[in-house]
């Protein structure tokens, strides 16, 4: 295919992917009972309504609580898991690698239902805490893969070198291993947070009486629409976008800093 045609194709794909998101934003910019686009009166009334409702805060806090805990647990466990996935070669590794990705290749709503039954069988009342557990079952394998990708590019000989130079185990971890892993940890944490924040299929079945943001949106979209629903959808999405931007900026700064320090050490060794 010729180049202009290719550009057109790619543009159409990207535009189509954003049309629904844009539609929510457009719908949120009027405060009429029924949706009638194009709006006769554009307004940000739906947003002032959303911010004045206590429920908006409660929903965001519930999602934040779940996503923050999922991120912490996922990072700790996945870092260990990634070591076994990519750093060490051991008997049984290929089975381990395939076994831990299985939850990714499993229908999420079905996993949610299975976990709901599992919690009931154990006599555990579902709440936001069980949702943290449920999210982890799906997100932990993903974060493990993300960190593993980074670890594959890691030369373990650096650790031996540091140890030969008299570094303690802790120093090796702090000065050699973790700095190399940092970009993987940052993107892994980003994945964990955003995937948990936006998750619908697992939350629906495992939060019990608590409600996360996507769940609430789902129930309101299916039953009684109001512009405030669009406004809260936009606010919730912008919150995650802001989080993503901050983390990516951190990643960029970290990358620049490590490039500078490596070029500095390179200039020292050549001089």
């Amino acid at each position, binding site marked *: 295919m010729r180049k202009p045609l290719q550009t057109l194709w790619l543009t159409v794909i990207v535009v189509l992917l954003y049309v629904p*998101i844009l539609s929510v934003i457009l719908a949120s910019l009027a405060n009429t009972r029924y949706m009638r686009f194009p709006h006769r009166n554009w307004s940000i009334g739906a947003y002032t309504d959303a911010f004045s409702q206590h429920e908006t805060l409660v929903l965001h806090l519930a999602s934040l609580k779940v996503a923050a805990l999922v991120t912490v647990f996922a990072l700790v466990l996945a870092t260990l898991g990634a070591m076994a996935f990519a750093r060490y070669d051991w008997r*049984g590794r290929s089975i381990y690698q395939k076994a831990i990705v299985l939850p990714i290749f499993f229908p999420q709503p079905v996993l949610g239902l*299975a976990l709901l039954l599992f919690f009931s069988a154990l006599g555990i009342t579902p709440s936001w805490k069980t949702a943290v557990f449920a999210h982890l079952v799906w997100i932990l394998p993903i974060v493990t893969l993300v960190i593993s990708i980074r670890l594959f590019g890691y030369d373990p000989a650096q650790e031996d070198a540091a140890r030969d130079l008299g570094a303690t185990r802790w120093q090796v971890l702090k000065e050699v291993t973790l700095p190399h892993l940092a970009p993987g940890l940052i993107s892994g944490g980003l994945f964990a947070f955003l995937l948990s924040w936006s998750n619908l299929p697992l939350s629906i079945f495992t939060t019990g009486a608590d409600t996360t943001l996507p769940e609430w949106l789902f129930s309101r*979209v299916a039953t009684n629409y109001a512009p405030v629903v669009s406004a809260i959808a936009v606010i919730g999405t912008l919150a995650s976008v802001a989080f993503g931007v901050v983390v990516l900026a951190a990643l960029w700064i970290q990358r620049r800093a490590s490039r500078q320090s490596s070029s500095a050490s390179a200039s020292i060794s050549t001089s």
Partner: protein
Amino acid sequence: MKPGPLFALPVALFLLVGFAAPIVIVGWYSLIEPRSFDLTSDLTLANYRAAFTEGYGGPFYWSIFGALLTTLTCALIAWPTAKMLHARAGRGAAIITGLIAVPIFVSESVRLFGLSLFMMPGGGILAGSLKALFGVSIGTVLNTKIAVYLGLVYVHFPFMLFPLLLGVALIPRDRIDAARDLGASRWQVLREVELPLALPGLAIGALLTFVLCIGANAEAAILGGQAVTVVTRAIEQRFSYAQDWPMGAALTMLVTLVTAIVVFPVLARIDLNRLIRR
């Protein structure tokens, strides 16, 4: 213990409890008397018999058919897209790839809600704009199976594209040139050089799309109206309204079985290290 297995232990244990154990429990529930909750009762296959005789064929059919159709559609759109992105290295391609990735992190409920607002008749975004700009009135596919299909393709396209990008990256450029020089047609290059080399990525993408679609229920709930009952919806109804857990469990096990039949053969043949390692 050696460091490998030692590091593997926490994740392995967690997934044993969080993934394997629930499936075992569901399997157990599926074998007890219909409408009972007692795990110590006698085991029976009654629920599975009911699954095949009591009209659950429809939901299974629609979920599997929808998953196949979506996988095929996504593959057909993602293949040229992946090749174009791979061909234009550098900043432009990185930006486009990033733009395609971002919607994955926007909640399904937001995106499907947006799609329904877009497709709404009368005052919807598309219908309203066309009416205001060109005076054209259009109907809507909202609340039909077509809307569900469009929603499935929309949500799952990135899950096909990204593994496929990894797959396409496995095709050495000179291999295509060599085939061309030896007189191969475009079609022959595609069939005998590109597809086999990119197969690991294509297989992972297809697998992911198919498996995610088979359980998908939000698309049907938000876009489909009453047009179609998908299998997850059928299971959910057994668990909630009908209070028939063993029946719901049996249906869950059947979906798990379909998933396993597709996943295991593909996963067994693919070398994850090769696909991930750059």
